[in-house]
C-alpha cells in the first residue's frame, strides 16, 4: 500500500515536472516563432468606456531584431496635439541580467527623455495595455504549467498557468498570476487573463483577428478588457509588413528627435499614406 502511494505520489511529481517543462517549451516556441527579421505596421489604439470612445491614437510601430536584442519604435501620428511623441524600447535577450532600456521623445520639450524600465505597470498611452503588455513574451520570469487543453473558437489550445518567480517581476508587471491560451498549431497567444494580489481576475486579453501576412501568422486585432474599471482598449494593426529591410538607424535616439516621418515609412513600404 505504502509502495502504491509512493509510486502514485512520484507519478504526480514527475507528471507536474513534465508539465512544467512542457509549459516552458511551449512558451519558448511562442517566443521563438518566426516573426520576421523586422516588422512595421500602422496601428490604431482605441480606448472605450462602454460605447463611448475615450481616447484614440494612430501610430507607426517598427520592430527589429538586432543581434539577440529586440528594438521597437512607436511614433504617434494622430491626434494632432500628441503628434510626433515617440518611444524607443530595447529588450535584451531573456536570461541576461540587463534591464530593458526606454526613451521617450516629447516634441513639446524637444527632448529625448530616459525612462526607467523597472516599473512597466503604467498605462501605455492611457490605454488598458500596460508597457509590460507590449514586451515580448517572457518565459523565465514565471513558473508555468499546462493545466489543460481547451477549444477556443474552434482552435485547439494549451491553457498555461503562470506565476511570477519573484517580487521584482510582480513589481515590474503588476501581475500575480497569468492564465494563457496558446494556439497549439500556430504558437500564438490567443487569450490571456490577468490576476491581482487577491487572486481576482481584473484584465483579459482577447485576440480578435489573426491573418497570414507574408506567410507569417500575424495578430491584426486584439482587445484588452479591464473588468474593474469597465473599460477596454483595442489594437488594430493595418498594413503590416515583414522583412522590409528596416535600417538599424531608425532605432536610435537621434532619429526619435528628427521624427519618424510618413516619408520614412513610405520609403520602406512603398505605401504612401498612413
Amino acid at each position, binding site marked *: 500500500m505504502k509502495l502504491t502511494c509512493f509510486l502514485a505520489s512520484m507519478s504526480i511529481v514527475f507528471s507536474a515536472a513534465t508539465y512544467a517543462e512542457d509549459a516552458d517549451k511551449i512558451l519558448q516556441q511562442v517566443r521563438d516563432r518566426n516573426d520576421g527579421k523586422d516588422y512595421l505596421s500602422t496601428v490604431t489604439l482605441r480606448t472605450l468606456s462602454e460605447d463611448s470612445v475615450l481616447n484614440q491614437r494612430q501610430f507607426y510601430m517598427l520592430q527589429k531584431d538586432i543581434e539577440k536584442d529586440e528594438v521597437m519604435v512607436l511614433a504617434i501620428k494622430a491626434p494632432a496635439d500628441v503628434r510626433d511623441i515617440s518611444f524607443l524600447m530595447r529588450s535584451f535577450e531573456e536570461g541576461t541580467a540587463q534591464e530593458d532600456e526606454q526613451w521617450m521623445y516629447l516634441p513639446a520639450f524637444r527632448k529625448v527623455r530616459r525612462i526607467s524600465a523597472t*516599473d512597466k505597470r503604467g498605462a501605455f498611452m492611457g490605454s488598458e495595455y500596460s508597457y509590460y503588455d507590449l514586451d515580448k513574451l517572457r518565459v523565465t520570469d514565471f513558473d508555468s504549467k499546462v493545466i489543460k487543453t481547451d477549444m477556443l473558437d474552434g482552435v485547439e489550445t494549451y491553457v498555461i498557468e503562470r506565476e511570477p518567480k519573484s517580487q521584482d517581476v510582480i513589481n515590474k508587471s503588476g501581475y500575480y498570476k497569468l492564465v494563457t491560451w496558446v494556439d497549439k498549431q500556430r504558437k500564438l497567444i490567443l487569450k490571456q487573463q490577468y490576476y491581482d494580489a487577491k487572486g481576482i481576475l481584473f484584465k483579459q486579453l482577447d485576440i480578435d483577428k489573426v491573418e497570414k501576412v507574408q506567410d507569417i501568422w500575424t495578430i491584426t486585432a486584439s482587445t484588452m478588457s479591464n473588468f474593474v474599471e469597465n473599460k477596454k482598449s483595442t489594437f488594430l494593426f493595418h498594413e503590416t509588413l515583414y522583412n522590409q529591410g528596416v535600417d538599424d538607424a531608425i532605432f536610435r*535616439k537621434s532619429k526619435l528627435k528628427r521624427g519618424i516621418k510618413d516619408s520614412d515609412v513610405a520609403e520602406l513600404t512603398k505605401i504612401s499614406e498612413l
Partner: protein
Amino acid sequence: MRWLALIVMGSASTSSYANLYIQPNLTTSFGYNVSEHYATEQRVELATKLEFSTENIDFTFDGRVEHDFVYNNNDRFSIDAQDQYESRAIIEEAYISGEISNRFWSFGYQKVVWGEADDLRVVDVINPLDYKDFIFFDIDDYRLAVPMFKLDYEYENGDTLNIITTLQQLSNEYPAPRAEFGNNYYPNSEQTQWGKYELGLRYSTFALATDVSLYAFHGYQDDPVVTLSPSERTLYSYEKFSMLGTSLSKPIDAFVLRSEFAYFDNYTVNDSDLSFKNVNKLEALIGLDYRYKDWTTTLQFTDRILNGWQPSYLIPKSAPIYTASAERGFFANQLYIRAAVSYLDNQGGGALSQLKLTYKPNQQWVLKLNLDLIEGDQENYLGAQQQRDRIWLAATYYF
C-alpha cells in the same frame, strides 16, 4: 479633422513623392490676476503646423498670429505693453532640412534644447526666452527660435555630433513696464543683430547604460549688462562668453538620475557702479525622476558659483533652486494633471506653485486650466511677482 494631402509625383515603384501635412488650430485664452482682480489676457490665436516633404528635402513651419483684446481701452497696461503684445505674429519654427549620407542638415528658424533639465537651464544656452508670461508656462512655450544652420553627423555606433551656427544674435525679450509682468528687468532691451554668429558643438554617446553629452558654446549672453551713457541714458550690452558642459542621464532601479554641469568662461556681470566685471561661473544641476505605475515625479536642484564674486555685484552670489513635480493622466489620459513647486533660495526666498490641468473631451478639443501662485520676498526674483497670482484658461480647436 486631420489635413493630410498627398501629392504623388511619380510612380510608387520609384518611391518618388511629396507629402504635405497641414494642421491648423484656433485657441482662445483668458487670464485673470487673482491677487489684484483684473483680466490679464483675452486672446485669440490662429496657429498652424505645416510639413512638406519630398524625397530629398523637407520644409517645416510652425507659427501663429494672435490678438489680445485685453489691451482695448485698458488703462492698466501701458502703451508700450499694448504695442508689444496686442497683436503678434510668431514663428515657432521655419526651416528646411535634408540628409546626405548620415549627415542631417537643417537651415532656418529653429529651437535647440541642450541638457537633461526640466524647465531649468544650465547647458541650454542656444535659444533666448520670451518672458511675456514670466516663467508660468513650460519653457519650450516661451523659447524664441533663432536662425541657424545645424548639422548632425551620426556615427556608425549611434554617437552623434551636432554643429550649430546661429546667424543672428537674439536676446531675451522682457515685458515693457506696466505689462502683466512688466518690471525693471531690462525694459526695452531687446536686441537682434544679423551677422553676430554663435557656435555650438554637442557630442552625444551612450556608455555604461548612461546617456552622456558634451557641449561647447561660444556666443553672446542672452541678458544684457547695463551701463549709462554720458546723458544718463541706459545702454545695454550683450557680451561674449564661452561655455563647456556635460550632461548625463542614467536609470537606477525605478529612478532616473539626471545631471548637468557647465563652466562659463569670461561671463560678464554688472558691479553696483555699472562697470563690467568678468567672472568665471560654475553651474550644476541634479535631478531625479521616479515612476510609480502611472505617476511620474521629479525632484531637481540647481545652483551656481561665481568665481571671485563681490558683494557689490548686482547679481546674487548664488541662486539655489529646488523644484518638485508630480504628474499623471486619468480616464484614458482625457484628463492630465501636473502639480509643481519651485523654490528660489536667495534674497529672502520665493516660491512658485503651479497646477496644470489638461482635458481632452475628444480628438478636436483641448481645454487647459493653469493656476500659478507666487509668494516670497520682494527682493527675490520669484517673490517680486507675488501680486501676479494668475488663473489661465484656454480652449484649442484642431481643425
